[in-house]
Every structure is written in C-alpha cells, then in structure tokens.
C-alpha cells in the first residue's frame, strides 16, 4: 500500500515533468497573448516546483520501507538487512542502483524548485525556458526510475531477510561521497539550463552568468568534495595505500569537474570584458554532457566491460539521451553563434584574458587525455579491431606536464592585467618568486632529491605558492600601513572586500597543497610486505614496527574481528600502538581489511594486516606503506572548500546590483 503510494507519486511527478516540457515548448514556439503567456508561465513554474515534494514522498516511502525491513520490495532486499544499524538503513537509499537514481531525482528536483523560487523574478522572461530545459533532464531521470530501475519493484514470496549493504560501502566517506557527487552533478544542471534557455530563446546577454554564478560554485564545490571523499574512502577502505587510480569511474566524475573548472575561470573574462561568450556556452554544455556521460559510464558498465553494454537496460537509454541533448545544445549554440560574437578580442599574449584562455586550453587538454584514456577500449576496437586499455602510467605521463603548466599559470595569472601587461612589469613581478622557487629546488636537489618530475613539480608549485601568498600579504600590508590595522584585521578586511578574488586564491592555495601532497605521496611512496612472528620487528623509512600479537573477538552485528597489535617506533622511540585488523561479515563471508596508521603532517605510516596464520605460531603478514605528504592532500582539500565558501558567500553589494538590474528589466518590459 505504502509502496503503491510512492510509485504513484513518482508517476505523477513524471507526468508533471512532461507537462512542464510541453508547456515550455509551447511558450517558445507558440504565440500566446501576453495574458495567456503569463498564465502558462506561472503554471509551468508551479509544475516544476511540485515535482520536489512528490519525489520526496517517494524517497521517504523507500526510507520507511528500509527502516521497517519491508523485504517485499526488491530494492530493500538487495541493500538492507534486519540487523543493519538504523543510519545505514537510511543511507541505503543510495546504496544501490534504483535507490540512488531516485535520490538523484530528489536532489535535482530540490535544485529545480530552489532555482524556480529564487531566480524567477530576476529574469521573468527567460525563466519559462529555463524551467523547460530543467524539466527535460528531470523527465529523463524520472523515466529511468520508473521504466528501468523501479525502486518499488516487488518480490513474491517475501524473503525473511535481506542481503545487507555491501560492507565496503559502510564507511562515513562512502556514505557521504555519493550524495556529494550527485549534488555536484545536479547543481551544474542549473547553469546549463540557463545557458540553453538563453540560446533557445535568443535573449542573449550576460546577465545569466551573474544569476548562475553561485549555482555553478555550489555544484563545483559539491563535485570537489565528492571527488575528495571518494579518494579518502579509497585510502581508508580499499587498502592499497592510494587515493586515485584513474579508474573509469573516478574519471567519470573528474571530467565534468575539469570542464566546470574551466567554465568558472573563463566566465570571469566574459563578465569583465564581454569576451568568450561562445566559448563559455561550449564549456557549460560540455560540463552538462560530461555529467550525463559520467553517470552513463558509472551505471551502465560500458567501459569496465564493454560486453555488458547490450545486456544493460540503462546504457542504451543514457546513450540516446546524451545524443539528443548533444544535438539540441550544440545545434542551438551553432544557430546562435554569430549572435554571441564579442566586439572585443584578445590584445596581447601577456594579458589576463590570454592567461585564462591558456588555462582553459590546458584544463581541456587534461580533460581530453582523460576522455581518450577512459574511452580507449572503444577507440582501439574501432581502429585496430582489438580492445586495448591504457594503464595508469599513461595518464601520469600525459597529464603530468599539463598539470605543471596549469600550476605555473596559476602563479602567472594573478600578476597579469586586463588588455595588456608589459613584459618588463611581468618580469619584475615574477623575478623574486622565480628566484626563490629555483633556490628551494636547488637546495632540495642538494639534499638528495633526484627525481626530475618531482623537482619540476616542486619548482612550479613553490613558484605559484609564493605568488599566491604574496597576493594576501601585499594587500594586507597596505592596509596595515595606511589604516594601522593588525595583520589579521587587515587580512580579514582584504578578503571580505573582494571575496570572489581572495576566495579564488584560497582555492589555489588548496590546489597547491594538494600538488605537494601528490608529488610526495606518488613519487616517494615506499612499500613493503613481510611476515612477522610475534615479537619480531621490521622497518621502513625512519619507522620501525614490532608485531605484538593478534586478538580475535566478536564485533557488532555479525562481525568477527581479527586485530593485530603493533608498536610503531620513530627513530627508536615508541610513538604509537596501532591496531590493523580484518573484519569478517560472517553471514555473507565478506572480509574487510582495515588499515591503521601513524599519521603526521609529514607522512603516514600505514599498516595493513593482509594475512594471519593462527596455526603457525601466530605469524601475520603485513603490507606497510610510507606515504610522504599525503595529509597535504586532505589539508589542501579543506582549504579548497573554505575558499569556495569565501568566493560564493553572498555579497550585499552584488545583491543590490542584481536587484537593480531586475528592476530596470521590469521597467523596460512594462514600458
């Protein structure tokens, strides 16, 4: 009964989405009277807003079914079990294909309802088309939920218990990671819909950028956090001492993130100089299509196993939708190409515009390499008739130099000026940072650092770090001198007076910390695998560890825990006792190897117990990693998040500008 209600709510939301698309098309192509137009537009707006409570009701019913362990629902049986803790039962909403698609629909509906409520008055003449383009995406995902992956599908007879959530997914990082990615993906649908609405309606101006800037930032932030949490989950749970493997599923989220990053940069130039209009439209369309494509890769299995494509019900539908949206969006862009042309053009290589454009090309270069590598099985089969894949070194070799250029540009760009920067001025500005970075690199070389990739990486990252820090320092110092403020007051005022700029620099600082972390942990990671008997020791780097013994005990639910006790010594001094362990879910037989580590700002000493021989005098085999600078990756990620908050925090002055523009527009329309 309850499930029928949830299904009915889903059907009604699907019909409502169809209504929204049809009404929007009528408003675009038909010629209703102004009064009728107003009526249909209001009806359209309400229809897009009603989808959220309907999908919310469906989701709530799935959650209630999970909490009640109602195994008459196939989905509940697949992802839940009676003894699962309550919080896992709730989060099991996105623990499987059908539920996570429904959850996707919920988040998209929430974003749509928010955009329709918040932005309607700012662009009343554009919003009906925005509503229509948003409804197309919603319609497709509702169709998938209803027609292919129905979360309300029944089981008969009703099983006594369910499968339970995959133990690997029972980790805080994995519980939060999917919703973050979905929020990122769905958030970025909003700026795309504005862009497509501008193209379809022909109401070409730059005001949609200001309206969607915060949506883009929100989407980008969630995508960033989602990627990072995925990496953290891999580091904590998958037990290979790493966080990024250029796996197709990882790449699926990374590619739209890259396109959105390029877009966030180049819209600044459009806002300041009215340039790159066509390019920005291309970038936001690309972001959207890559988002759909990424969802397609993750859910269809087309890349991990190309043979599964024909068997998958979801794959061909995603492919058709992707093709359709590509034709509509690029067709509209092509149709409006000349209308989007800018009167301004690039004046000099040494200008901020050129620096941003180069930054965009390099980001798209990384995106292209990632796309090529991810799709290489398909490409190679088309060309050679043989399916081939590329290994991780391919990505590292191809993207390494591009990342170095990108980081270098991150340092150069803030020193350039709009229109043109004189070479002498630029030379003076970069001289000290360049010299300082070179000296630091030479010192590291003298200290024994010999990997050329690491040396180049440290050199460019230090160069950009000095310039970025100097941006904060110089502006704050000026206030300290002129206003007599303390450093922190001056810094705070500097940031709050130009949040967008300094928020951006804070994000850059985060990226630079991550760059140091990646150089340390990828190039200088050390690893060993060794069997130790009780009381035996081994060493790695400056650390030594002694295996003290193993204890086995029953954990919560059906867990059987086998836990080693290991003393960790740093230069002979006991610094920590750690407990690497395996957890066996006895009912399903699924083991989990849980690492334990000694963590410091400079490195992680990361230990896994990979094998235990009870019968042979309590020997255990350990896999040990020494991951230098790994924590810089996590610190940098936090800084990126803080920077995005600073950049996106509402600015009263900006709100006044938006309000004034909207008022002017209304006056014009009325007149």
């Amino acid at each position: 009964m309850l499930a029928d209600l949830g299904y009915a709510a889903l059907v009604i939301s699907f019909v409502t989405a169809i209504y929204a698309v049809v009404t929007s098309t009528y408003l675009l192509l038909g010629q209703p009277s102004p009064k009728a137009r107003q009526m249909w537009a209001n009806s359209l707006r309400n229809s897009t807003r009603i989808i959220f409570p309907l999908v919310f009701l469906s989701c709530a019913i799935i959650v209630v079914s999970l909490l009640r362990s109602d195994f008459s629902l196939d989905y509940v049986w697949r992802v839940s079990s009676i003894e699962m803790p309550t919080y896992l039962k709730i989060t099991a909403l996105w623990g499987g294909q059908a539920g996570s698609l429904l959850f996707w629909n919920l988040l998209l509906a929430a974003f749509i309802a928010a955009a329709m409520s918040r932005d309607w008055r700012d662009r009343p003449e554009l919003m009906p088309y925005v509503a229509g383009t948003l409804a197309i995406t919603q319609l497709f995902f509702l169709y998938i939920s209803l027609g292919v992956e129905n979360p309300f599908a029944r089981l008969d007879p009703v099983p006594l218990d369910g499968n339970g959530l995959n133990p690997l997914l029972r980790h805080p990082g994995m519980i939060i990671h999917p919703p973050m990615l979905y929020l990122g993906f769905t958030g970025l649908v909003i700026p795309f819909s504005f862009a497509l609405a501008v193209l379809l309606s022909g109401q070409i101006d730059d005001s949609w950028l200001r309206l969607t800037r915060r949506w883009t930032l929100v989407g980008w932030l969630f995508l960033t956090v989602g990627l990072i949490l995925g990496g953290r989950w891999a580091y904590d749970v998958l037990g290979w001492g790493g966080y990024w493997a250029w796996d197709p599923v990882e790449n699926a989220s990374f590619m739209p993130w890259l396109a959105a990053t390029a877009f966030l940069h180049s819209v600044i130039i459009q806002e300041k100089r009215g340039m790159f209009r066509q390019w920005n439209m291309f970038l936001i369309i690309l972001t959207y299509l890559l988002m759909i494509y990424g969802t397609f890769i993750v859910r269809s299995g087309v890349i991990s196993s190309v043979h599964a494509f024909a068997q998958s019900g979801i794959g061909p539908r995603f492919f058709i939708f992707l093709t359709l949206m590509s034709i509509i969006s690029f067709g509209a862009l092509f149709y409006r190409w000349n209308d989007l042309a800018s009167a301004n053009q690039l004046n000099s290589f040494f200008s901020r515009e050129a620096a941003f454009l180069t930054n965009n090309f390099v980001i798209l270069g990384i995106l292209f390499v990632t796309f090529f590598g991810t799709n290489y099985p398909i490409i190679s089969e088309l060309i050679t008739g043989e399916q081939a894949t590329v290994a991780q070194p391919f990505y590292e070799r191809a993207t390494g130099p591009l990342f170095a250029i990108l980081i270098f540009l991150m340092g150069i760009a803030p020193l350039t000026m709009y229109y043109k920067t004189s070479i002498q001025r630029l030379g003076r500005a970069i001289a000290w940072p360049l010299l300082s970075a070179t000296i630091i690199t030479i010192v590291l070389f003298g200290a024994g650092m010999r990997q050329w990739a690491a040396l180049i990486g440290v050199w460019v990252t230090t160069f950009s770090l000095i310039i970025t820090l100097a941006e904060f320092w110089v502006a704050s110092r000026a206030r300290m001198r002129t206003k007599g403020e303390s450093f922190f007051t001056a810094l705070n005022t500097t940031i709050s007076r130009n949040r967008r700029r300094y928020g951006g620099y804070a994000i850059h600082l985060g990226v630079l910390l991550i760059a140091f972390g990646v150089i340390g942990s990828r190039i200088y990671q050390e690893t060993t695998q060794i069997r130790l008997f009780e009381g035996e020791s081994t060493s790695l780097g400056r650390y030594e560890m002694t295996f003290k013994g193993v204890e086995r005990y029953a954990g919560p639910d059906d867990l059987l825990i086998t836990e080693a006790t290991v003393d960790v010594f740093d230069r002979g001094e006991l610094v920590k006792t750690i407990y690497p362990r395996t957890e066996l879910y006895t009912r399903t037989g699924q083991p989990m190897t849980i690492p334990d580590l000694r963590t410091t700002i400079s490195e992680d000493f990361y230990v896994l117990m990979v094998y235990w021989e009870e019968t042979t005098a309590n020997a255990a085999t350990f896999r040990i990693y020494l991951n230098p600078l790994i924590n810089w990756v996590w610190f940098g990620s936090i800084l990126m998040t803080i920077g995005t908050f600073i950049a996106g925090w509402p600015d009263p002055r900006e709100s006044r500008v938006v309000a004034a523009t909207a008022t002017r527009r209304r006056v014009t329309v009325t007149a």
Partner: protein
Amino acid sequence: MADVSWTNTNPKADILAQPQTNRLKFAIAGIFLFVAIGALLVNALQGTTQLFTTVGEYYAAPEKAVGRDMRISGYVLGDSISYTQIDATSSRLEFDIVDDVNYPDQRIRIIALNEPKPDLLQHQAQAIVEGRMEDGQFFANEGGLFLKCPTRYEELSTETGGTHPDGATKGAYDAETHQYTEVTD
C-alpha cells in the same frame, strides 16, 4: 564655460584600436598547444597500452597474447583460490577465472606474487588482472589485481548471497576453523 572637447586620453583605447592581426598569432599558439597535447598523448601511449581480453577471447587467439602486456577479465572460481606465504617476504596468490562460472571448463590460472589477497576476491567476483601470459598461466603485475568496485552498482545476482526465497547459495562460517565456505540450500 568648461572646455568640452572630447579628446580620448584613455590608454585602453589605443590598445583596443590595435589592428586585428592578433587573431593569427593566437590561432598559431592554439595550434601549437593542440599539437603539443597530441604529442604528449602519443608519447604516453608508448608502452602503456594493454590488450583487453576475456578468457574465451584469449583461447580463440592465444597467439595475440605472446609477449604483450594484457588486461584480462573474468569471474573468479571460489574453490580455486589459494594463498601461500612462502617465506617472510614472498607469497603466492592463485585463482582461476572463467567467462561463465556455470561453464568452468575454459579457465585461466592467475598467479600474483607478493600481493595481498583482495577483500573482494570471492566466488563469482569479477576480476580484472593486468599482467602477462607465461606458460599457460597469467602472472599479475605488481598492484595489477582489481576486483569490481561496488560503486559500479553491479547487479546482485540472487545466487550471490542473502536469503532469497528462490533458493540461493549462501555462505556458512565455521567458528572452529575460522573458514568461510559456500553452501547451497
């Protein structure tokens, strides 16, 4: 009365008035970047491509595998998994993969030296292994053992566990031997 002769003293105006020849320079720079990225791509491909094959495809044309780095995909046969700790620093993990666990005649033996046994290495798990074929056995590269990640939403088969009413296989844990074995209802 003030002088209202509008002489443009804005330095930006001169820059804006520059001839449109920059377009060519930027086009050349763009082409240069494009070619550079292409060159990076081609260079990176050298020695990093792997022939992707299934068990059946390998047996259909085994000569293709000679001397090549490969990535092979198949489903794990649970009863073939064995892990041996040879001495303090060396171990040997072995298991067989097939295209279809119901037709296990055509199988390939995977050997991974000094690799930990992945948590997901279980009966019917999909394994993707990077390595080389030598003497009819497939030797995994270091860190070349991948079991299908749960984020890919692989469809649970009713045969893979749980207490499905249709009569499924499920695991049994022996507390004395600390062994997990699969049993059929």
